[in-house]
C-alpha cells in the first residue's frame, strides 16, 4: 500500500519543551489509523502539524507526496479535517458554512447544493441547517464540522476526537459513515481517547507518550477484543 500520509522525523518544540519528538509514521491509502495517547502526549500537536496549523520545528508532513508546509495548497486539496473543538463561524448558518468550505475547495455551486442536501440526510441535520452557528448545540456543531470535512470528498481525513459531544445515536451514525468511507478508499488518521472506538474501527494503531511513539503496529492486527487494548494501553502509558 503506498503511503498517503507520511510523517517524517517530525519534532515540535515550544520553547525548550519538546511536545513531539522525532515522530515517524506512514499511513496507507484506505487505512483507518488510530492515534492514541494519554492527555498531553502530543496527539493534537501532531494533528495540527499534519493539517498545517502548526509548523514543525524539524521534519516534514506529507499528504499524497506534498509537504503541507512548503507546498500547502496541493497538499490540503485532498485533506479533510475535524478539529478537537468544532468551532464554526457564529454568524453563518450551517448551510452557509458548508457553502463556504466548498468554496474554499473550489467546488462548483450546482454540485455543492446537491452535496449539502446529501449530508443533511447522512447526519440527520434537518431544519437546523438554516440556523446560525451561535444557535447550535455541541453535537450539532460536530455534525456540521464532520459534514464540512467530508463534503469535498477528501482522500485523507484527519480527525481529532470525532465523537465528543455526540449522543449515542449520532455516534453510531458517525462510526458507520467513517467505516463505509474507508471501504471506498478514504484514509483516516484519528486521534481519540475512546479505546472501544479504536477496537471497533481502526485497522492499525500507534500510541504516543511524551511526544514519542511507544507502540506502533506494523500491520493490521486482530488483537483488539475483550478489552486487551485497554490493558495494553494502561500498561504502556503508566
Amino acid at each position, binding site marked *: 500500500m503506498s503511503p498517503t500520509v507520511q510523517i517524517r522525523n517530525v519534532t515540535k518544540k515550544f520553547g525548550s519543551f519538546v511536545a513531539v519528538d522525532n515522530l515517524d509514521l506512514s499511513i496507507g491509502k484506505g487505512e483507518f489509523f488510530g492515534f492514541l495517547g494519554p492527555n498531553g502526549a502530543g496527539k493534537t500537536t501532531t494533528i*495540527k502539524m499534519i493539517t*498545517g496549523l502548526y509548523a514543525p520545528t524539524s521534519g516534514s508532513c506529507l499528504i499524497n507526496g506534498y509537504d503541507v508546509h512548503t507546498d500547502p495548497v496541493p*497538499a*490540503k*486539496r485532498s*485533506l479533510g479535517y475535524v478539529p478537537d473543538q468544532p*468551532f464554526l*463561524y457564529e*454568524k453563518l448558518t450551517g448551510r452557509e458554512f458548508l457553502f463556504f468550505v466548498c468554496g474554499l*475547495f473550489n467546488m462548483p455551486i450546482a454540485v455543492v447544493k446537491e452535496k449539502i442536501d446529501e449530508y443533511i440526510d447522512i447526519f440527520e441535520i434537518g431544519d437546523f441547517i438554516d440556523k446560525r452557528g451561535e444557535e447550535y448545540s455541541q453535537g450539532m456543531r460536530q455534525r456540521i464540522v464532520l459534514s464540512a470535512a467530508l463534503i469535498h470528498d477528501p482522500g485523507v481525513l484527519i480527525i481529532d476526537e470525532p465523537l465528543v459531544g455526540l449522543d449515542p445515536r449520532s455516534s453510531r451514525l458517525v462510526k458507520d459513515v467513517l467505516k463505509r468511507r474507508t471501504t471506498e478508499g478514504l484514509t483516516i488518521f484519528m486521534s481519540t481517547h475512546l479505546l472501544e472506538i479504536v477496537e471497533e474501527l481502526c485497522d492499525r494503531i500507534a500510541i504516543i507518550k511524551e511526544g514519542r511513539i511507544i507502540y506502533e503496529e506494523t500491520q493490521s492486527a486482530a488483537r483488539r477484543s475483550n478489552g486487551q487494548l485497554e490493558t495494553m494501553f494502561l500498561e504502556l502509558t503508566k
Partner: protein
Amino acid sequence: MPQFILILNVKASAFIKNVTDFRPQSVLKNLSSVLIFGGVALGVFLLSRAATGYLLQQAHIGLFLFHRFLSMLLYVFFITVNLGNMIVCYATLYKSEEVTFLMGLPVPHHTIFAVKFIDNFFYSSSTLLLLGLALLLGYGSYFGMSAWFYFFTFAAVLLPFMLTAGVFAVIMLMLLIGVASRVGIRWLLSGIMIVYLSAIYLYFSAVNPVVLVQEVMKHYPDVNAYFGYLDPPFVRYLPNHWVSEFLYWTVNGEPARASWHLLTLFCILATLMLTAWIVARMYYYKSWVNASEARSPVAGRPRFLQVRFMEFGREGILARPSDVVLRRDFWGFFREPSQWLHLLLMFVLLLVFLVSISSLDLRLTQPFLQTISYLVVFLFDGFLIASISLRFVFPALSLEGDAFWCIRSAPVSLRRLYLQKFIGSFLLIVTTAEILSVASTSMLRDSPVLVLVGALCTAFVALGLTSLNLGAGAYFATFREKNPIRIASSQGASLTFLAGMVYLGAVVALLVVPLNRYFEILIIRGTTSAGWLAIPLVAVGILTSIVFAGSTGVGLATLRRDF
C-alpha cells in the same frame, strides 16, 4: 471581601506574569510598547506645554478663557471615557466567559461586578489616563507647579474624574439592559447614539465658545479676571467644570476655592459609587440573566437583512475561494450589530465634522497661519481615518476567530487571503478618506492645487494606515476574542493607534515647510508655485511605502504562525 481580594490577586498575578515575561519576543513587544507610549506621552506633554504658552502669552486669551477651553476639552474627554466604559462594560460584565464561570461559583454577584468593573475601567481607560497625565504635566510645567501638584492632581482629580465617568457609565448600562430586553439591543444602541450626539451638541450650543470669547475680549486687557457669570447655570453641575475650576483657582493661588470644587467631585463620585453598589446588589444578576437570555439560541432573531446577490450559493465575479470569503465577511459584518452600528456612528461623526467646517472661512492673510489651518484640517481628517482604520481594519484578522482552522487547513493561499482583506479594507478607507478630504478642502475654498495635494496625501495616508492596522492586527491577533470593540481597544490596538499618530505626525512634518513656502508665494507675491509641493508628496510616498512594506511583511509572516 476575601473572595474579592482573591480574584483580584489572581488577575494581578496574571498581569504581572504577562509584563515580566522575559522571552525575547515579549521583551521586544514590551519594549516597543514603552517606546511608543513614551514617545506619544512626550509629544502630548510638549504639545500641551507649547499650546498653554501660546494661548496665554501669544494669543493673550487670559486664564479664565483658557480654563473654559480646558473645561470643553474635559467635557469631550468625559463623554469619551463614559462611552468607552459603557461599550467595554457590556462585553466584560455581560458577555465575558469569566463572568459565566464565576456565576457558577458561590461568589456574591456584587463581588463579581466589582472585580469586573475595576478590570474594565483600567482596561478601557489606561491609555486615556496616560494621555491625561501627559497633558497635566505639560500644563503644570508651564505654570511651574511643584511635584506634589502633579501627584495630587493625578491621584485626587484626574483619576476620580475618569472614575466618575466610568461609574456613571456602568450604572446607566445596568439600567439600560432591562430596557434592551423590552425594546431590543439595536433600538437601544441607536437611542444611546442619539443621546450622546445630542449631549455634545446641546453642551456646545449652550456654552457657545464664540460668544464667550467675544464677551471676555470686551474686557481686554483684564482677561485674567473671573467671568463666571458668563457660564450657563447647568454647566456648574458638570464634573468637567469642577476640574477646570479646581485648576483655575489652584494656578491663581486660591486653594480654598479650588478645594471646594474638589470636594464636590469627591461627593459626587462617592454618591455614584454607592449608587452603583446598590444597583449592582439589586440588579446586576437580574440584568446579567436578561442579557444572557437575550443571546440564547431559543430567543430567535428577526431576519431583517435580505441581500439576495450576497447570498451563498450564487455565482460571483471573483474566484470561488475569494468569493466565499467576501460573502462570509459581508454577513459576519451585517449580522453583528456592534459592527454596522459603529460604522454608522462614525459616518454620522464625519458628517458632523463636514457640516461644522463648512461654515468656517479659513482663508487667512498670514502664510504661516494659513499653513497651520490647512494642516489642522488635514490632521483632523487623518485622525478620523486612523480611528476608522483602528476600529474596522485592526480586528479584521482576529475576527477570523477560533474557526480560522477552517481556512488554515483548506487549500487556500494565506497570502491571497491577506491581500483580499487588504484590498477590501483599503477600498473602504480610501473612499471614505477621499470624500472627507475633497469635501473638507473644497468647503474651505482651497485652490484646486491644494485640493489635489490633499487628495494625494490622503490616498497615501489611507494606504499607510490600512496596511499598518492590518499588519499590526495580524501581529497582535487574539482569535479567542469575539468582540471587535475589545479587540480594537486592546493594548496592541492602542500601540497601533499611537504608531499611526506618529506616522501622521511625520506626514504633517514633511508638509509644513513646502506648504508654508507655497502660501508665502501665493499670499505675498500673488502667484502660485505648485512645484514646491511635489517634493513633500514624493517624500510622503516614500514614507508610506516603508510603512506599507514593513506592515505587510509583518502581517504576512505572522499569519503563518502556529494556530
